[in-house]
C-alpha cells in the first residue's frame, strides 16, 4: 500500500492504535491492551491519490480473500489480519457503503471519524510512515461513540480504553492537548464525553473537562 501511494492518505484507527502508541507513551507504564486481528484504515472521502489500483489483487498474492460486511463494505481477510476500510459519514447517513473506485473497493461509513482525520500524527514503523490519530482525539472519540454501542461489554471497552489513554496523556503532561481538542467540539459532543466520564467514575478527568462548560 505504501508503494502504491495509498498509505499516505490512510490513517490507522481502532485497536491497532493502542499498539502503535507504545513509543509515544514510552516513559509511562503503558501496556498494550487486547488487540484484535481487525486493522481499520480510515480514508478521506476524496482521495488526493491519482491513479487506480485494485487493492484486492494487490493482497491476493499474500493469501487475502475478499469478504463483505452485511451492508456491502469491502474487507480483506487472512487468518492473521482482517483489513477494513472506512470513511467519515456525512449528512443524514444511509446504510450504503461508500464507493472508492480508485482503490476498487467500497468503504464503510461511520460517524465521528472526522475527529480522527482532523487530528493526525505520523510515526515511523520499520520502513513505513504510518498516520495515526493524536491519542487525545482517539480517546475522546471513543468516549463519544461509546454511547452508540448497543452491547454493554463494547460500551465498557470503549470507555476503558478512552479513559486509560486520557490518563496517560495527563501523566505525560499533555492535559492541554486534551482540552484543546475537546474545546474544538460542538456542545453535544462535549456533553457525551463528560457524561461518559461521569458514568465511568473517572472523576479527575471529569473535573478537567467539565470546568466552565
Amino acid at each position, binding site marked *: 500500500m505504501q508503494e502504491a501511494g495509498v498509505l499516505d492518505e490512510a490513517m490507522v484507527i481502532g485497536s491497532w492504535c493502542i499498539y502503535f502508541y507504545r513509543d509515544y507513551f514510552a516513559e509511562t507504564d503503558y501496556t498494550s491492551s*487486547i488487540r*484484535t*486481528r*481487525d486493522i481499520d484504515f480510515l480514508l478521506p472521502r476524496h482521495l488526493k491519490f491519482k491513479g487506480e489500483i485494485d487493492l484486492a489483487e494487490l493482497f*491476493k498474492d499474500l*493469501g487475502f*480473500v*475478499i*469478504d463483505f460486511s452485511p451492508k456491502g463494505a469491502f474487507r480483506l*481477510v*487472512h*487468518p492473521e489480519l*482482517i483489513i477494513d476500510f472506512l470513511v467519515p459519514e456525512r449528512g443524514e447517513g444511509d446504510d450504503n457503503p461508500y464507493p472508492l473506485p480508485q482503490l476498487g473497493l467500497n468503504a464503510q461509513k461511520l460517524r465521528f471519524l472526522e475527529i480522527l482525520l482532523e487530528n493526525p500524527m505520523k510515526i515511523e514503523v520499520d520502513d513505513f510512515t504510518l498516520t495515526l490519530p493524536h491519542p487525545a482525539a482517539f480517546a475522546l472519540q471513543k468516549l463519544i461513540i461509546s454511547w452508540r454501542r448497543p*452491547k*454493554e*461489554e*463494547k460500551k*465498557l*471497552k470503549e470507555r*476503558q480504553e478512552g479513559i486509560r489513554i486520557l490518563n496517560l496523556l495527563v501523566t505525560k503532561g499533555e492535559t492541554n492537548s486534551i482540552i484543546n481538542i475537546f474545546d474544538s467540539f460542538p456542545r453535544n459532543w462535549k456533553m457525551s464525553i463528560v457524561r461518559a466520564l461521569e458514568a465511568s467514575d473517572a472523576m479527575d478527568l471529569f473535573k478537567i473537562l467539565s470546568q466552565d462548560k
Partner: protein
Amino acid sequence: MKVIRGVLSEELQNSLQMRKRYRQALENLPRGSLVEKNIRGRKYYYLAFRENEKVRFVYKGKLSEVELKRYREAQKMRAKYRKLYRQVNQQIIFLKKVLRGKTV
C-alpha cells in the same frame, strides 16, 4: 471477563466467515493440476484431478504460455488457500474451546 469473552466471540464469528470465504475461493479455482509429459521431444499436458475415489487425467494437448500461467497460478493459489484454510480451522477449534471453558 465479559469484555474478553466478547472479543473472542467476535473473533470466532470472523474466523467462521473467513473459512467460508476460503472454501469459496478454492471452489472458484480451475480444477486439477497440470502434469507435463515429454513425448518425442515435445511437451504435452494433462489435467489431473480427483473424481470420487479415482484420479482422472484429461488430455489438454499443447498449451499456450498464457494457459500454462493460468494453471500454474491456480495451483499456487490452491496450495496457499488450503494452508490458510487449515490455519483458520485451527483458530476456530481453539476459540470454541476457550469460549466453552468455565470461568473461575
